[in-house]
């Protein structure tokens, strides 16, 4: 499985797609769509919103394709578009309002998470997908961009329209939460009658 940033396409195929050849466009779609959708799903979560962002991303990709200068792999260029679309979605007023509304629920989830980490056997919790999904969309995006995509705190802060401290703080909280998810349960010592 290739990472999106590593995906490249042949120059002649790219030239045909730039001229509007639908067959070439479909071949490029087949090459880049799976990795693009995987990235979008990691950043905005699953569901219809991921589909919407994916559609937006691919439409922008084909609209801007004639401006691609091949200074980097096509996948790296597409990754920029996809991340930009995901962050636009996460920063949108509607999405932020939704996140604020879900803030209380998130705190309740967190308490539940701690409870689970101390009672369930560690082997049952080894599901990194679920751990990632338990984070808030913003924290999940920060973790993914920093740890997997290799963005710096400055870049993440700029992308969110915030400072590097925002990125560091989000990452620290996310690490704490992920650690709580994965750490083995610590059984309290049993009470013994004297």
């Amino acid at each position, binding site marked *: *499985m290739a990472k999106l940033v590593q995906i490249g396409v042949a120059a002649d195929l790219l030239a045909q797609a730039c001229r509007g050849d*639908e067959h070439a466009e479909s071949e490029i779609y087949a090459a880049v769509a799976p990795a693009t959708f*995987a990235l979008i799903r*990691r950043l905005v979560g699953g569901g219809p919103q991921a589909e919407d962002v994916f559609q937006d991303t*691919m439409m922008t990709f*084909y609209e801007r394709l004639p401006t691609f200068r091949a200074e980097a792999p096509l996948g790296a260029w597409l990754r920029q578009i996809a991340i930009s679309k995901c962050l636009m979605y996460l920063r949108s007023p509607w999405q932020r309002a939704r996140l604020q509304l879900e803030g209380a629920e998130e705190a309740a989830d967190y308490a539940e998470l701690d409870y689970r980490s101390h009672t369930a056997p560690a082997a049952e919790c080894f599901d990194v997908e679920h751990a990632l999904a338990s984070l808030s969309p913003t924290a999940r995006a920060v973790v993914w961009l920093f740890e997997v995509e290799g963005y710096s705190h400055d870049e993440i802060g700029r992308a969110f329209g915030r400072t590097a401290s925002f990125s560091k703080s989000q990452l*620290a909280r996310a690490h*704490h939460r992920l650690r709580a998810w*994965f750490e083995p349960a610590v059984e309290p010592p049993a009470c013994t009658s004297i």
Partner: protein
Amino acid sequence: MHFDLEDSRSVPQIVQMLRHLPTEAEPPIHWKEFKRRQLLRRARARSAQRRQFALAAAVGLVMIGTIALWKHMPPLQYPSAQRASVTTLPMTRRPVVPIAWDEAAVRSAASERWLAAQPAEPAIVRVGTRAAVMTLEDRIAWADDTLTSMRAKGGEPDRARALQYERDRLVNSLAQVRYAETLAADLP
């Protein structure tokens, strides 16, 4: 809130697991569906753009029409004469009102007759209304005095007509106030 990440040995392991997650996922739509939705969205965007243009054009037309209508309308002299104060408006510049002159005078005479038929003191006297009545009566008296002296001196017919018009208006206002007083007096 501070978290000491150095103390945690599990974070690098978690990061490793994250990096080994699948980097590809089955796209939600195939190429044909993507193209169909692309065309649909473009059509919607074009339609929305056309609607915006149509709306802007309609607003522009309405504005142009309103301005044209306003420019071709005759000046409304009666309302401005109504708004103006006798003491502040220069009488020499007051426009002559050619319409409804006799009608206003007739109405004024009728109002005067009706006022004369009213009792000198209403059953219920409210201070605010009384003050308004007194002000109106004072202004009418002032208008009468000015008109008498103007007629005695002669000349300035336009000013005299305007003042007469203002007097009629004041009499009508007084009649309205007194009528309101009568109605209020009838209330339980």
